[in-house]
């Protein structure tokens, strides 16, 4: 435990989830400093400092969805602006994507307008911790698998995924990781004949 941890200035009461999340976060910092990419840890700490690992978004979900649809459509049109359009009878590569993107922008517009006219649901609290850690651990698997081999990447994803959840226990996690990776190695590599890169330690 870092000595600064208890004095983080978190509200002691009110947010009931601050407790377990905070101790889990501390556990991850000390016992597995290598597992997480620094950017991920920074984002996590920033998020935790805000509201104790979860983000409460007060925006309407319709508005945000509309915004997303519009920006994706616009992005697709911009990237595809140099694809030839052609005519209806002889469509170029850009014709169909342009149609779909315009449709997307139209729908996004409807959603945005609707979000101002009617009361819509707020998005509410998003737990950043499982999101970032789980995605991070799978990304780590992707980054490690080619150069470090399956056993290392497999251990990384199991440990990372386990940290992403609640009630993280180091010993249990280590046993689980070793057991699962061994099981998969036997089942997939030897049993089903999948090609998984091996780890060479020397």
């Amino acid at each position, binding site marked *: 435990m870092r000595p600064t941890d208890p004095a983080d200035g978190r509200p002691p009461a009110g947010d009931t*989830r601050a407790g377990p999340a905070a101790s889990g976060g501390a556990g991850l910092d000390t016992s597995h400093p290598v597992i997480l990419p620094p950017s991920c840890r920074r984002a996590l700490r920033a998020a935790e400092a805000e509201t104790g690992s979860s983000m409460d978004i007060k925006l309407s*979900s*319709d508005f*945000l*969805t509309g915004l*997303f*649809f519009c920006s*994706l459509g616009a992005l*697709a049109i911009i990237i*595809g602006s140099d694809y030839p359009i052609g*005519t*209806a*009878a*002889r*469509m170029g*590569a*850009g014709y*169909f*994507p342009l149609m*779909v*993107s315009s*449709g*997307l922008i139209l*729908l*996004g517009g*409807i*959603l945005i307008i609707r979000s101002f006219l*009617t009361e819509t649901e707020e998005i509410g609290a*998003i*737990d950043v911790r499982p*999101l970032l850690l*789980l*995605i991070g651990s*799978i*990304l780590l*698997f*992707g*980054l490690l*698998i*080619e150069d470090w081999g399956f056993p290392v*990447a*497999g251990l990384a*994803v*199991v*440990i990372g995924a*386990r940290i992403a*959840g*609640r*009630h993280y226990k180091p010993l249990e996690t280590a046993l*689980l*990781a070793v057991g*699962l*990776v061994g099981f*998969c190695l036997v089942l*997939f590599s030897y049993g*089903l*004949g*999948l*090609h*998984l890169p091996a780890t060479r330690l020397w």
Partner: protein
Amino acid sequence: MELFNELLLGFSVALTPTNLLYGFLGVLLGTIIGVLPGLGPVATISILLPVTFALPAPAALIMLAGIYYGAQYGGSTTAILVNLPGESSSVVTAIDGYQMARKGQAGLALATAALCSFIAGTLATLVIAVAAPALAEVALDFGPADYFSLMLFGLVAAVILAHGSVVKAIGMILVGILLGTIGIDANTSLERYTFGIPAFGDGIDFAVIAMGMFGIGETISNLDQKDEQRSFVKEVRGLWPRWADIRRFIAPALRGTFLGGCLGLLPGGGPVLASFSTYALEKKLSRTPGAFGKGAIEGVAGPEAANNAAAQTAFIPMLTLGLPSSAVMALMIGALMMQGLSPGPQLMTQRPDLFWGLIASMWLGNLMLVVLNLPLVGIWVKLLSVPYRMLYPAIMLFCCIGVYSINNNALDVVLAAIFGGFGYLMKRLHCEPAPLLLGFILGPMIEETLRRALLISHGDPMVFLQRPISLSFLVLTVLLLVVLVAPMIRVTRQRAFEESTD
């Protein structure tokens, strides 16, 4: 007796020892993964899909069909024992099934679900064997314009599949179509949205999207949910139904099969629609409607039969027209394409072994379910008692291995992680991932048929209205849209009125 010869051919394919083994393996694996809470058939199939890539086409399809049935039955098991439906079609099973389990009739509920699914599966397989060839003959007359309108109809119908906002569901379809345009354009061989990455030339693998959005995305949402106390039934006794029980559930099962079989033909949400409407029907027909919701065996039998029948007949549009009517069928089409086969009316004439083998294995899969699951129910109960914190890291590891082994490409894993985060965020925005997957699968086909139809008509869009088949699908599409949007307008207007009178 042509039908019998063809069915015989099918059984001769399905009954070879290796194929039988793969079918069995599929049912077993499907049930193992499907029984895990929070993983429905779509997620299960996505996770297990890469395992089938290395197999020859008939074995792969037979295994996939087995996985599908196993996953569905596994979902019902979870619904009955834990009250945690893996997907929307087993929501109804959970209502009365869980109550039965709490009354100490867990075994009976599980057996009822299995037997009714088997009855429905047998009848629906026969329907497929009779109806599919006839429909495929009709489908041979379809021109590009007809296909285009049909797929448009299918996509709009898929909106029923999504819960909540129609606009968002259509938006997700369009996002899926847009993702489908990534890669080298087939007609002009121009690279679209590849960002100069050579691996994007063939487009994104649909298994990457499916596994990311369903496998990884669902797990994030499960972790996000606050610790809930799951009370589940550990004791399963009295597995075999008595004669009196059979007499009670046989009629609802048959009614459910009929209703489900018909609704399953409709593109979009067949099993869901089927199980809900059958439940409503049984409640209406029952002499003791008050017993529903408190553990009525009819409330398990009818919907289980209906969703299985619908799940089977959903294969008809898929096999004859190449049109997926649900996310599961979209996955099946994806799997067929991976094997280098294009689903559609030609499949039956080009690969009769495959077509009839699949139909035969559907029935065998249903049989295996009964044979396998009733004795093994104790194991599934054990599996359910493994805490989720031990299960989901394993699921993540399987996802990673699965995605990586599609092309032995680490980029796919990175993409799947991104789609996992995307899927989770979209879910929080109340956008369902299923329409996106459907759009992604159908998108390239839609573009192709649109281009061809307009090329033939020299750019005249009237071609879609002049061809009778195309016109009727377009009319159906418009009707469907009106039906979908009308209640929304009414509700919005009502809300507006209420606000103005306040």
